[in-house]
């Protein structure tokens, strides 16, 4: 792309998200590279944009934080906001208005309606490693036996049992997966009735128990938080449970 004056109407624009056109732009809100965030409106919908940084690739930590912060400012103000995935840019403010907003006004307004008055939160749980490993040892004689045997192997013979150690770890990981299936289902079953929508993420690590985004009606938020606290308390010996949010509803906007 050619270099252009940063503030001309045709300067390329980074697009953070879409809000209702009556949403208020928080004063002094800045985005990528500290550029002022602008609201460009078309009828009922408006896009959050700022001048696109030129001459470098995006994706530094500060860029990700900027993207999130702009959207979070609206979430914190209680305004419905549709987050774009990181990396959306258009040729200019006019293009944003005409091609993004005007051409999709009804569709965007409908999605905004679907999340209005609701908050997105994320629940993450992780096993307390020592506690769950004790469970695994207690619950599986084969694992306990192999673990016991390997513990008795002298230092200079450790190489000889390399594959046994791999096998022990593999069995432990298998046992954790089984436990996770039960525990995550149990936790989400308890929370799902309090949410309007649930998006379960595949846990990344073997010691992760649950990772899900939930869309909760604003009026149910207290009940929901108490439910999470209750589950955290009940499971505190073996699972560390965290509630993060409210967040922009990344999981609750249509991908296609």
């Amino acid at each position, binding site marked *: 792309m050619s270099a252009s004056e940063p503030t001309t109407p045709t300067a390329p624009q980074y697009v953070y998200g879409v809000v209702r056109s009556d949403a208020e732009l928080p004063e002094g809100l800045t985005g990528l590279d500290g550029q002022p965030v602008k609201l460009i409106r078309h009828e009922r919908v408006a896009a959050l944009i700022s001048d696109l940084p030129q001459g470098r690739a995006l994706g530094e930590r500060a860029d990700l934080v900027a993207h999130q*912060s702009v959207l979070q400012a609206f979430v914190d103000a209680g305004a419905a906001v549709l987050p774009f995935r990181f990396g959306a840019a258009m040729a200019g403010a006019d293009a944003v208005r005409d091609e993004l907003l005007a051409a999709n006004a009804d569709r965007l307004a409908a999605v905004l309606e679907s999340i209005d008055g609701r908050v997105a939160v994320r629940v993450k749980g992780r096993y307390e490693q020592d506690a769950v490993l004790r469970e695994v040892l207690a619950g599986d004689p084969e694992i306990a036996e192999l673990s016991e045997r390997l513990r008795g192997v002298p230092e200079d013979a450790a190489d000889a049992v390399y594959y046994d150690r791999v096998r*022990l*770890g593999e069995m432990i990981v298998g046992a954790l997966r089984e436990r996770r299936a039960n525990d995550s289902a149990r936790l989400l079953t308890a929370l799902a009735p309090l949410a309007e929508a649930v998006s379960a993420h595949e846990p990344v690590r073997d010691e992760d128990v649950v990772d899900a985004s939930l869309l909760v009606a604003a009026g149910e938020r207290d009940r929901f938080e108490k439910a999470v606290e209750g589950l955290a308390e009940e499971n505190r010996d073996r699972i560390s449970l965290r509630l993060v949010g409210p967040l922009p509803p990344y999981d609750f906007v249509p991908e296609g």
Partner: protein
Amino acid sequence: MTGPIAQQTSGTSYVQNGGGGGRGTSGLADVVDLILEKGLVIDVYARVALVGIEILTVDVRIVVASVDTYLRFAQAVNRLDIAHDGTAQGLPEFVGGLEESGAKRKTKGMLSGAQERIKETLGGDDDDSDSKSKRPARRRGSKDEEDDK
């Protein structure tokens, strides 16, 4: 509607603000995969006026080399036993064992290198960094299809 929540609740549930403001690091770690993998995709809504941009970013979902994971758990359970019965044997042999072969050491080295890089990107002390790897990639540049190194 109420504002953001940022408090230590009872039990082990830690309720925190989602990451824009002052809580920087841990906040970003909790949303970085959403920012990169979820949300509206602009290409679906507009095409003609898109601007292709180069994105350097993290791939938040790597598969950690299985053998390494297995050895980590084998070591953890071994350490657990030590703590449990108070015997001192065991741990050194496992630490030593991890160094045993060149090939294995290489895997391990690559893995920790990846962790260091992501820590730079995410700013360090987040609790999720050990499961992520940085992949400098032209992840999705709207109009540019000529991806992959």
